[in-house]
């Protein structure tokens, strides 16, 4: 028998508005109504301002470690725009722009990085999940959330976000396998920003694309210019349609770049060349988007000045709200341990101690006096 080819495949790449400002009208015309384009651009300006302010808050000691989003904002925003408000966004920690668009109040993310869990309390009716610190783990939750929607006969889908580094974790592979084999309505958005802290993507993946990882699991996949908001909207809309109508997952590799350090605890100059950063600065998603809006007479420098002013005001108000929230009380750490606090935890909370002399419930009051003289 001759040797035959059992699989020969190609990976599509979507680019609509490239870094030079060229716009593919055939793909892009009518994709996003003009007034939405303006709203999206304005949102990017606000998010960039937020990112810069958050960075400064960390530097001035008003906030803990913070991961800058700078340069990647179009990826999560484009995806969020293509989702329905009641679709799940299951993110890691670099998707502020998409999360705010999806309805998460802006002070929440600040609070979390200020070391306050209350930032992770997602308000009722907002379909997103708390910060996911352990890399790669949240994709399985997206599969489960999508599965629940399917089980209940709802047409809600789940869109999960993660980095290039996260594709090395076993959980990613399990999430992809479950989603494909159980026909789950999930969108995997891999934010390939070239780096996982100091580790370049080639150490996570030696194939020419990350997108093709989807093929291995039998799901549709596509590579997208992640700094092109039009391409992100198109790819996500297609994937959402597939998820909703056929209950099939899609893998989207969004090629973008982390313009800042990994977090404020990192110094990227130790491991990457400034030339590389400079080249990507020119591919900043906001530059081309603004130029595109100007070309279409939807934008001008007056509008830019106005939105910049508004962004500063809005973000200042958000910071004020986050900083004015009364500090948590030590006892709050017990509040959400269980639906009902076991007796011994109640004693720990009421006495704020773990040593047991004086913890005979009858003596709790004495003990409280000892701890809080």
């Amino acid at each position, binding site marked *: 028998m001759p040797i035959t080819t059992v699989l020969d495949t190609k990976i599509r790449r979507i680019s609509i508005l490239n870094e030079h400002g060229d716009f593919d009208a055939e793909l892009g015309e009518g994709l996003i109504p003009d007034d939405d384009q303006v709203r999206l651009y304005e949102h990017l300006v606000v998010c960039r301002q937020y990112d810069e302010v958050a960075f400064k808050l960390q530097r001035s000691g008003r906030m*803990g470690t913070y991961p800058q989003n700078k340069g990647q904002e179009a990826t999560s925003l484009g995806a969020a725009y293509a989702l329905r408000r009641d679709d799940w966004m299951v993110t890691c920690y670099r998707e502020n722009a998409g999360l705010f668009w999806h309805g998460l109040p802006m002070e929440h993310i600040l609070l979390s990085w200020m070391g306050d869990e209350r930032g992770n309390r997602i308000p009722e009716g907002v379909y997103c999940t708390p910060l996911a*610190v352990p890399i790669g783990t949240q994709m399985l939750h997206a599969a489960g959330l999508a599965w629940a929607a399917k089980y209940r006969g709802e047409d809600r889908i789940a869109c999960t976000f993660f980095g290039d580094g*996260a594709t090395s*974790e076993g959980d990613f592979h399990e999430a992809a396998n479950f989603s494909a084999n159980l026909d789950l309505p999930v969108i995997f958005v891999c934010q390939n920003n070239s780096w996982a802290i100091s*580790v370049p993507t080639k150490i996570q993946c030696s194939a020419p694309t990350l997108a093709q990882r989807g093929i291995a699991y039998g799901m549709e996949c596509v590579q997208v210019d992640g700094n092109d908001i039009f391409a992100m909207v198109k790819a996500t809309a297609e994937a959402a349609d597939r998820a909703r109508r056929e209950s099939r997952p899609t893998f989207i590799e969004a090629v973008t770049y982390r313009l800042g350090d990994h977090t404020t*605890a990192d110094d990227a100059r130790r*491991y990457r060349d400034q030339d590389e950063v400079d080249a990507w600065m020119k591919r900043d998603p906001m530059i081309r988007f603004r130029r595109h809006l100007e070309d279409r007479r939807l934008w001008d420098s007056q509008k830019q000045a106005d939105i910049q002013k508004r962004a500063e005001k809005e973000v200042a108000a958000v910071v004020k709200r986050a900083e004015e929230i009364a500090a948590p009380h030590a006892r709050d750490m017990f509040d959400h341990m269980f639906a009902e606090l076991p007796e011994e935890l109640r004693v720990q909370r009421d006495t704020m101690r*773990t040593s047991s002399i004086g913890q005979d419930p009858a003596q709790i009051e004495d003990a409280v006096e000892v701890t809080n003289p």
Partner: protein
Amino acid sequence: MSNLTLVQAINLALAQEMEADDRIILLGEDIGLNGGVFRVTEGLQKRFGPERVVDSPLAESGIIGTSIGLAMAGLRPIPEIQFEGFMGPAYDQICSHAARMRTRSRGAFTIPMTIRVPVGGGIHAPELHSDSPEAIYAHTPGLKIVMPSSPYDAKGLLISAIRDPDPVIFFEPKRIYRAFREEVPEDEFTVPIGKARVVTEGDEITLISWGATVVQCMNAIEKSHRSIELIDLRTIYPIDMPAIVSSVKKTGRVVIVHEASKTCGLGAEIAARITEQCFLHLEAPIQRVTGYDTIMPYYKLELEYLPESNRIGTALEEVAAY
């Protein structure tokens, strides 16, 4: 002798052992060019090359699983898990394989691997960057668990761990990575695994701790007028019971301090052993000053969670007065 931080002492131990033994390979996330997120492996890739100091893919199960293979082939891997909170994905490889391989293969395969892991809270870090899981691994038969509290011990214990024929988890208390310096001999030396250190001698109360809370205990002793014997366990498994027993026989009163939550923490094991071995010498119930049985809170409340010197001081007074 040079005056080193804990980070520098570990870096020196790694460099010297690598120089002496080319079976040693370091692997982990960001440990190469970047020198690790805490800079513990700073300069080592440059010095020993990328074949011996390897930036791995972002996969903890992969890091430990391949280390096991390297070790089975006779090498001496020193994998790093970036933070204790990310040992989760590696749990299966650590507990289902590394801990069992010698027994499973009836001694044919051994795992001379040292897993380095920054541990504990107090550095204003995000979630899962501040936990203290040592008891989970001490509860797993087949693993040795070490946690130094000073630069000198860090160097000596790490060298012992690397040379140990069995898997050792070497927890590095990140809160004191750079908190103070200490004279550390340039030359190689070892601190034996399984031996505690009496930090201060005393005859009224035995205070037992390890890792960063040893510093809190010293602060508590400074504020107290009592005669307190502070024992730094240094090795969590195997526990140096003779050191504990001889102290308790002298004092009859015990306070155990650890950052990890209370229930099923190491304090429970130590207290049980003390009652087994010196029940008749006890003058007061053994007390534990630990983290609460809650999730380690985000950093706004971390100092409320961690056992600080005031909480330790209260327990010392109560035990003394009992």
